[in-house]
């Protein structure tokens, strides 16, 4: 019987010829990831195990990105735990402020993750790397702590849902709109415990940056992982970039799926997710006109170079509306430099937008753009839960960089068509 790409990667890492949904397996890990919030707890658990070294110094990534540059004394203490552990254990992939980027943008960019890998991360958006044809999933700190010692983790093999994407993208519609549309259709637990596999003739029209965005938000439908097959777009990205050899897996034609969902891009408009769940999506025409106080363009979901380019394209020669704060956060130092060299910062700064060093910052209500009671933010981030960006009486609306840039200019939720 055929297998899905998810099943094949899990089987290969468990040393088995095949696995099926529901199987409990022990699998070898290629990369184990943690950040400044989750790794201190993981390091504490690691220390309880009675081992004196990590399973491999070059297979652990410690990225202090959430509350960095350190927002307060307590955060500074947390990052110090990572820094000292990394030094003591000789961990290769520890990147401090100056080299640091938002973890899920940084790891692919540096070639630390690649096709066919099995990755766990103590961060729910670890599912991002599925864009490269890898199996990657979020876990908690205890799993991370143990994996740092053993290089292994247990998994229940998930069922897969096959999304067949066809048709042609409408103007301004991006990967963010597609994944918001899907979450709106299936709900925030529509893929709970399952793999979301993105296939179909239209996938070739989604850039690698868009695929990262789509895989990134699989968790917002409750999924264990989001995954794409490897094609020319993937290969062009990973060529000369991955620091370990990679392996290409593809789903068999007779693989078994829990269900198949076909999506015609003719039905997908620009989307806005209303408070307080990512499934509360509306098309841009239904969302337009709501007054906003802040716009955030950044995060592991949409802080990549293409996201900044589209925002700059829309904001060029215009000003952010009075009364709106527009905060732009390139996700990594490399993206920051590239945006600067391409002149995007001139456009943003001339428009009265603020440009920040890489950080998760406001996405999770950490720092760099917290909302007061009664305020409303339109953000390219991934969650709009109660209090996610600040006051429990504030509101977060999720959208693409194009919608975010247009909305910053008008001061209300807007389509790029309204300003271009």
């Amino acid at each position, binding site marked *: 019987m055929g297998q899905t790409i998810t099943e094949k990667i899990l089987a290969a890492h468990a040393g088995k010829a095949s696995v099926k949904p529901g199987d409990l397996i022990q699998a070898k890990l290629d990369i184990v990831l943690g950040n400044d919030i989750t790794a201190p707890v993981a390091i504490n658990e690691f220390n309880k195990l009675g081992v004196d070294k990590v399973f491999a110094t070059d297979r652990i990534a410690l990225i202090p990105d959430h509350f960095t540059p350190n*927002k307060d004394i*307590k955060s500074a203490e947390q990052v110090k735990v990572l820094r000292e552990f990394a030094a003591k254990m000789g961990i290769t992939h520890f990147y401090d402020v100056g080299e640091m980027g938002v973890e899920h943008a940084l790891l692919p960019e540096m070639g630390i993750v690649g096709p066919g890998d099995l990755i766990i991360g103590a*961060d729910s958006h670890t599912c991002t790397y599925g864009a490269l044809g890898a199996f990657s999933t979020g*876990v908690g700190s205890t799993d991370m702590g143990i994996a740092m010692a053993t290089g292994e983790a247990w998994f229940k093999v998930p069922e897969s849902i096959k999304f067949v994407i066809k048709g042609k993208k409408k103007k301004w519609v991006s990967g963010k709109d597609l994944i918001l549309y899907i979450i709106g259709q299936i709900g925030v*637990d529509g893929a709970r415990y399952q793999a979301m596999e993105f296939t179909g003739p239209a996938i070739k029209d989604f850039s690698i940056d868009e695929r990262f965005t789509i895989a990134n938000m699989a968790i917002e439908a409750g999924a264990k992982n989001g995954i794409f097959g490897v094609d020319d777009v993937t290969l062009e990205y990973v060529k000369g970039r991955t620091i370990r050899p990679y392996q290409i897996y593809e789903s068999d034609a007779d693989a078994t799926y829990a269900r198949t969902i076909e999506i015609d891009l003719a039905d997908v408009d620009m989307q806005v997710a209303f408070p307080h769940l990512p499934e509360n999506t509306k098309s841009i025409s239904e969302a337009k006109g709501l007054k906003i106080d802040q716009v955030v363009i950044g995060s592991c979901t949409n802080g990549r170079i293409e996201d900044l380019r589209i925002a700059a394209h829309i904001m060029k020669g215009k000003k952010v509306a009075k009364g709106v704060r527009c905060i732009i956060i390139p996700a990594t130092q490399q993206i920051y430099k590239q945006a600067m060299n391409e002149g995007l910062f001139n456009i943003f700064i001339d428009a009265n937008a603020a440009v920040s060093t890489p950080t998760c910052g406001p996405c999770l209500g950490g720092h760099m753009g917290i909302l007061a009671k009664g305020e409303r933010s339109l953000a390219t981030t991934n*969650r709009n839960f109660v209090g996610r960006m600040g006051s429990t009486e504030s509101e977060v609306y999720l959208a693409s960089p194009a919608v975010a840039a247009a909305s910053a200019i008008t001061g209300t939720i807007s389509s790029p068509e309204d300003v271009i």
Partner: protein
Amino acid sequence: MNLNGKAWTVGDHIDTDVIIPARYLNTSDPNELATYCMIDYDKDFVTKIKAGDVMVAGANFGCGSSREHAPIAIKVAGISCVIAKTFARIFYRNAINIGLPILESAEASEKIKEGDELEIDLANGKIVNVTRKESYTATAFPPFMQELIAQGGLINYTKKKLGTAKA
């Protein structure tokens, strides 16, 4: 193990940002985290509950972030068990790993009302609603997870496997 406590009901899709908001994640001290448990849902939650009380939730409890701080905060605040219609995947895994008892039962989730007195037989997944004179059975854990639970979580299980556990 048998547990006794009063039920505190919450709705569907209770996310980890509500259980423990990120603004309190600049610490990993379990006792400090516990003081903020459910603060964005009900700011007086931790003062209202008594040690041993049970949280009864709807669908997809613990969705969102992977923060283990969420089950830690619930456990240290004194909640003895979380019953839900369904759990989000990472929360489910984290709860078992750290030894926070959880039970999945759609019937219990629907029928238990706030304030009901519950008696729970964890080993057999039996929930007795003393107030309503009803009983419900939770979904059984797979044998591997039963072993994890029996050994007090993933750390003890792994120590035994690695041979680093003290006899």
